[in-house]
């Protein structure tokens, strides 16, 4: 699987830039370290939705290859961030990470306006996260 993804990956010669948003600084530290250690990703972390949205606005289209955001955050939550980003650039690839006890069906039921393709439950197994990011990049 990994090889296939690598073959189809148009960014394979260039490091993919990943935006990670979470209000838990310890989590940001772990994700950034564990993703960057693979030498395949360049990770920029934000501890609030506002900071993340500002950075997104301030960069050109395609600057971030994949955005990974927590859902439960103070002030601007992950859904709000999702809507803002999709309004600006609908093709942006966004995945949610959450510690909620919720599955994809329940999620869709509660928020039908959000098309949740990628949905990762905390605590994250880093191998799963890496695989998820790679498949999103390939899509």
């Amino acid at each position, binding site marked *: 699987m990994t090889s296939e993804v690598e073959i189809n990956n148009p960014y394979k010669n260039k490091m993919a830039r990943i935006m990670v948003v979470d*209000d*838990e600084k*310890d*989590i940001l*530290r*772990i*994700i950034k*370290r*564990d993703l960057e250690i693979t030498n395949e990703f360049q990770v920029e972390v934000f501890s609030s939705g506002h900071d993340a949205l500002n950075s997104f606005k301030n960069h050109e289209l395609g600057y971030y290859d994949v955005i990974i955001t927590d859902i*439960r*955050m*103070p002030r601007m939550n992950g859904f709000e961030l999702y809507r803002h980003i999709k309004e600006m650039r609908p093709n942006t690839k966004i995945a949610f990470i*959450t*510690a*909620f*006890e*919720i599955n994809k069906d329940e999620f869709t039921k509660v928020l039908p306006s959000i098309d949740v393709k990628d949905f990762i*439950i*905390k*605590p*994250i197994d*880093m191998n799963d996260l890496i695989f998820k990011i790679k498949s999103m990049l390939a899509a």
Partner: protein
Amino acid sequence: MLSIVLSRINIFLLILVIGVGISLSILSYHYSGLTADQIGEIASNDIRSNAIIETDGLSKTLLHIIDPVSTNLEILSKIVNYSNIEGTSIIMDAVQNSTRSLTEGYYWIDENGKIVSISNVNSSIIASYSGIDLSNREYFVIPKETHASYYSSAIESIDKVPRLYISFPVLEGSNEVFKGVIVASIKIHELGRFLQSELAPQVAGNVGLMDKNGIIIYGSNPSLIGKYYLGEEFQSLVPEEIRGPYNSLLARSLKGSAGAEDLILFGGNKTTLTYQPVFIGGKYLWTLFVSSPHQLAAEVGVLINNQKNFSTLMILIIGAVALGIAFLILSWNKRLESAVNSRTIELKDANNSLLRYNKLLESANEKLSIHDKMQKEFINIAAHELRTPIMPILGDAIYLERQFEEGKTEVMVDREQVSSIIRNAKRLRRLASDILDITKIESQSLKLNKEQFNLNDIIQSSISDIKAQLLSSNPEQLENLTISYEPKDIFVFADKNRITQVIFNLLSNSVKFTEKGSVEIMIKSERDTTTDTTYVIVSIKDTGQGIDKDILPRLFTKFASKSFEGTGLGLFISKSIINSHGGKIWAVNNHDSGATFYFSIPQQ
């Protein structure tokens, strides 16, 4: 019963039934009437034709009995011999014997009006009549004048017995010299009786005879015999109401033709009067009358009237029965209706109680679903809070472990990694403790271990703890934040650990929402005169962002917090602890900025 007909449809139904009943009665009455009239008409026709036949027959009978008398007289008038009176008398006796049922006697009168002989009367007696002059009698004068036979009308004689005389002239030689008359006297009573007896009993009528001049020869009333029909005696006996038609009928009958006409008497009784002219010797002399009362027709009419009344009565009875049935049905309907109504009311009641029950169920369900939702929320938040600290702990641990896999026996661990592990583990510990408290509160098994302690001590230690915590987590905030407290010794009898928990919780809340500014703690004791209890009041006032208006009313419920750092259980637990101490907890937004939390507990 009357209440039954009050409804419009019921009134309509009853009117319909009554209307149909009355219409049927009228129809039947009319039909019966028509039938009765027809039957009556048929009967009348029958009577009329019978009367005509009867009268015709009777006139023939009359002729039949008068004819021999006429014949005898004719013969006698031709054979009388003045020279042989004796011989002639013998013949006269024989003639009288042959017709004695009708004739009273035969008389021989000479040309001077003297009696020559009388049948069955011996000569010596006749001799005593020699002084009697009959030359002025019509039965003498007219044949003498006319040389023809004479038929008298009813003539009352000296003995008050009305008689009818028939006379023939005795004419001698070719010159027809008048030599007297032969007369036959007929007792009218006898003739009438005879005619009456000849009348068929079915006709049940009366016979009358009148001469061509309108003189009554015979009638059922003997006093009228010999009277003119337009005379006073007769007319006084004719009923007023039929006088006109009756007289004109008699006048018509005297024209010598036959006829039958109906007369309707007062009271509707009908009588057919049949008249038949009687011709004797080719000459119209009398008219025979037969009156036939329409007894049968009247009887038929009565019968039919009875029938008519009976059928009308029957229809009225049927109508009444129908009406009764209609009433019964209506009352039955009414009863049914009331039964249905009461059943409907019962059903409605049942339905209402069901609805009430459903509402209760609904509210119970609602409570359950709220409970469910809260439970779910609790699980969700608990899951979030449990999972979040696990990740950094696990993340660092796995990272470190991987380095060992590369063959190293020692690996570098930086300060941040260790702090993170401790911080997150503590978070887990706090959460575990909160969840345990909630479980105790919800199962109502939160137990207080009360002791006497100085409130001042626990406030001071809580402030130190908060400051220490801030120093490690957010030293920048600590620089911008003042936590002020004026120490004061107030002893309370309460659960020290639980009250510490409440104070620490309130304090950390205030600190959490006050990025910059101050947090001020105050304590005081106050006596409530109404309950005669001294309360200790603790207030924690901050200059932070204040409490969201949406949150304020449910501030002390589970997960009310908008904070993303806590469990949302702290205030709920605090309230439960204060309540179980018999105290109160509340919060207000300050006028300028921030909020103030209060709690009060009885001092002892």
